[in-house]
């Protein structure tokens, strides 16, 4: 097995990034004008990268499958963005953010990358404020912070429950400025379907104009993939309907290694499923766990009473409730990391305590927060003997100010009023920590091909902490990639314009044409969604929150069977040369059907429990931590990077050993 070179700079961790920036090659401004860069995806990572690269002088072509860059799914991120600003004077620092992120990721991330992430985090906030991003502020006019799961400081900046939207619109505005100047050429409603590799280097892409169906060749000196994660391999997830792994999977099949596909984050607070027609799951921000208490009834009779509607949740007294997170994890309580909270919910529901008809829901209750805030507010207002109703009204107002849009969203979807009755929540697939393997420069194993944001594997290890995805996407796009890409491009200044008539472009285009043509002409009997749902069910049942060897082996076989059947029996209506959403879906699901199998294979290979990856074979057997996940640092302290060999079952494993020089390896404890 080969050893992957992470290209981590030498020296003490706190100087690595500065030294690296001082020593890498630069491209002079005159030459930047002659260099093309393709950016696929316009979310936080892609949008910020495209804007920053164009500002530096590169010629950028950006691609989005949506009708505008502003629609990328980063827009849906709710809670916030972390930064080591220490505005709250609670002892935060770059080191603490670094430490929390590595620990939160269960020691499966690359130290050097995470440290850099923590280091540039503060600049992100400065940059966004300069762009006019309206973060929440305190009455003194300074920025407000909130706290998130898995940490003991308040370092999360936010804009109500729409932080992702505001940050994305900031990046979008920076892009707009460059589009207006002609420095970014924007290709909306275009989907990348293939990477073009010439002489071992990424030289362009084949994209489909989704309006006309025309295949287009685009050349560039470097290609950046910022196409997000692959959570939709589960069919049901909090991802957007269009979120897909195609760009990432295409570069994987052209030589980019895919790292840790089994690291998936199941988010604990989503609105539970209501029926078979369900097309997606909706997240309720983790920030709600600041004020909401999670519980199920202690007694089975009460569970049944609630399910049948005979008992209202608020009728149960505190002693009749099991605040299981507070019970199991007194130190962190309701603010344990996401993986821990999700598994705990599953454990209670598996034991039969689920509170809705499907048995897959727990309560997230704001009654005590409403009371607490109401009393505080009454005191501030000088009301010395407020009635219960007054306290409740005041408290509701405070909660509304903090989470109004989330409560409204919940009510619109479920028709329940969360101010009056506890929310029902259940874990759902939310984020994929795994992704394309990249080195310190964010370059994949294909020279000239980069991966940024959720599409790469680098910073979150086996579990991502809340409010870290936005931080990583913007760090990659604003502050990392624009520097590191120059190191590679400095060797490209003599290349000149790359012709799209090269045989490699012709061949890649033909490959795409044949693939789509095949899909159209199968003319089978079942819709694309049928196969996607089947795949999702296998993934959720066998490769979900809790995994074991037998289930994973079975998953591999089942997925292979679904894939075979898909290629024989899928029905794609319409033609290639028109706006054809079914064809788009078919091409994406075809890729998910391969990725899913690699996912299961990776999960099987990693016989340890770490972060979001929980293997039933690897748990603590005794002591205080009995039943908790058990990491195996002796055998699995590495990144599993998979090389495509023509069949996901035969993917070749490459290991990048992880070194921890600045953090002591410990079993995580949130007790």
């Amino acid at each position, binding site marked *: 097995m080969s050893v992957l070179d992470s290209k981590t700079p030498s020296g003490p961790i706190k100087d690595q990034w500065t030294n690296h920036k001082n020593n890498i090659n630069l491209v002079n401004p005159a030459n930047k004008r002659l260099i093309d860069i393709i950016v696929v995806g316009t979310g936080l990572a892609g949008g910020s990268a495209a804007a*920053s690269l164009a500002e530096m002088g590169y010629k950028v072509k950006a691609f989005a499958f*949506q*009708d*505008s*860059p*502003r*629609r990328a*799914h980063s*827009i*849906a991120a709710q809670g916030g963005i972390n930064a080591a*600003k220490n505005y709250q004077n609670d002892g935060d620092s770059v080191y603490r953010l670094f430490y929390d992120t590595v620990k939160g990721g269960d020691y499966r991330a690359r130290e050097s990358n995470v440290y850099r992430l923590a280091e*540039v985090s503060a*600049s992100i*906030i*400065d*940059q*966004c*404020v*300069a*762009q*006019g991003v*309206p*973060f929440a*502020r*305190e009455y003194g*006019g*300074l*920025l407000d912070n909130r706290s998130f799961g898995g940490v003991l400081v308040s370092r999360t900046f936010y804009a*109500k429950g*729409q932080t992702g*939207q*505001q940050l994305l*619109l900031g990046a*979008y*505005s*920076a892009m*707009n*400025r460059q589009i*207006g100047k002609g420095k970014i050429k924007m290709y909306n409603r275009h989907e990348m379907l293939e990477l073009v590799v010439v002489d071992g280097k990424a030289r362009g892409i084949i994209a489909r104009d989704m*309006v006309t169906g025309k295949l287009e060749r685009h050349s560039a000196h470097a290609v950046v993939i910022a196409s997000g994660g692959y959570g939709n391999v589960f069919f049901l997830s909090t991802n*957007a*309907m*269009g979120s897909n792994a195609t760009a990432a999977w295409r570069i994987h099949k052209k030589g980019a290694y895919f790292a840790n596909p089994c690291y998936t984050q199941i988010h604990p607070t989503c609105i539970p499923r209501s*029926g078979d*027609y369900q*097309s997606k799951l909706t*997240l309720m921000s983790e920030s709600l766990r600041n004020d909401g208490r999670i519980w199920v009834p202690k007694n089975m009779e009460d569970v049944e009473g609630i399910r049948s509607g005979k008992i209202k949740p608020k009728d149960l007294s505190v002693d009749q409730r099991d605040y299981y997170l507070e019970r199991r994890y007194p130190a962190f309580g309701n603010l344990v990391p996401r993986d821990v909270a999700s598994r705990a919910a599953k454990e209670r529901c598996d034991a039969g305590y689920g509170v809705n008809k499907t048995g897959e829901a727990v309560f997230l209750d704001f009654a005590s927060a409403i009371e607490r805030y109401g009393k505080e507010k009454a005191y501030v207002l000088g009301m010395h003997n407020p009635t219960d109703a007054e306290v409740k009204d005041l408290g509701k107002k405070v909660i509304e100010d903090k989470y109004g849009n989330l409560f*409204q*969203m919940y009510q*619109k*979807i479920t*028709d329940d009023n969360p101010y009056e009755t506890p929310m029902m929540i259940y874990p759902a697939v939310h984020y994929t920590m795994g992704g394309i393997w990249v080195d310190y420069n964010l370059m994949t194993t294909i020279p000239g091909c980069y991966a940024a944001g959720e599409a790469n594997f680098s910073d979150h290890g086996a579990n991502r902490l809340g409010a870290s995805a936005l931080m990583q996407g913007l760090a990659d796009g604003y502050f990392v990639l624009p520097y590191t890409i120059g190191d590679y491009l400095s060797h490209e200044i003599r290349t000149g314009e790359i012709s799209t008539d090269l045989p490699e472009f012709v061949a890649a285009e033909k490959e795409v044409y044949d693939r789509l043509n095949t899909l159209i002409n199968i003319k089978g009997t079942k*819709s694309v*969604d049928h196969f996607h749902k089947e795949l999702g069910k296998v993934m959720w049942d066998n490769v979900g929150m809790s995994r074991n060897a037998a289930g994973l082996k079975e998953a591999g076989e089942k997925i292979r069977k679904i894939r075979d059947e898909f290629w024989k029996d899928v*029905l794609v*209506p*319409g033609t290639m040369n*028109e*706006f054809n959403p*079914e064809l788009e879906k078919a091409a994406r699901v075809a890729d998910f059907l391969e990725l899913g199998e690699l996912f299961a294979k990776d999960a099987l290979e990693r016989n340890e429990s770490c972060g979001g990856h929980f293997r039933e074979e690897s748990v603590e057997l005794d002591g205080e931590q009995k039943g908790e996940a058990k990491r195996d640092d002796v055998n699995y302290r590495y990144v599993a990077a998979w090389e495509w060999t023509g069949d996901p079952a035969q993917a070749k494993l490459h290991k990048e050993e992880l070194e921890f020089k600045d953090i002591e390896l410990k079993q995580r404890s949130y007790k």
Partner: protein
Amino acid sequence: MSENMKLTLKVWRQKDAKSQGKLETYQLDKISEHMSFLEMLDVLNEQLINTGEEPVAFDHDCREGICGMCSLYINGEAHGPDRGVTTCQLHMRMFKDGDTIYIEPFRSKAFPVIKDLVVDRGSFDRIQHAGGFVSVNTSGNTIDANTIPIPKEDADNAFDAATCIGCGACVATCKNSSAMLFVSAKVAQFSLLPQGKIEAKDRVLNMVHQMDLEGFGNCTNTGACEVECPKGISLENIAIMNKEYFKASTKA
């Protein structure tokens, strides 16, 4: 509670931008009131695919009311009869068993139909290109974010304006197809923040100029946009933009 609604759908079908379109009628049954409107359309499409017909094309992505991709003029209203929601958040409990539902694309000269219910909202992007930004380059050396305090009220108002999702319901609803609510949301957001004030004059002139070039109509203050806006963007923003525009035009 109904799990078994029967519905008649009148759906706009149009092959492509150049073709003529027309309303087609479809029957659906077994629609649950817990479904979202788009899940109901998923059921229709599954039914169409299985009977060898072409599914209805419609824009959608996040399905949680934030990306602004979904549109649809449902029973004579943008995003349908509910308030404060996008089409993807509209639930079938707003309808009754036996209802006939008209489903049409967002219409405006500046939003040409691409196919069926999908329209081209590129005009919105082009307005943003004209000035919807603060001219600041990426740099690790901008001033510290807390250097300029911003009154909470201004920050909150700027945020409220900035929550526009660019869906185009305002244009689709407005009897004049005016885009002023959309444009004013951006103009107002920046006019309330110190970072945006520096370029306020050019921004409003250029964005309004581009808005006019795109062929949107004039605002006559009917207020329909504000009512139909899924994010509750206030008409106050249009007043702010009018004022900003007047200032910009009269200032040397």
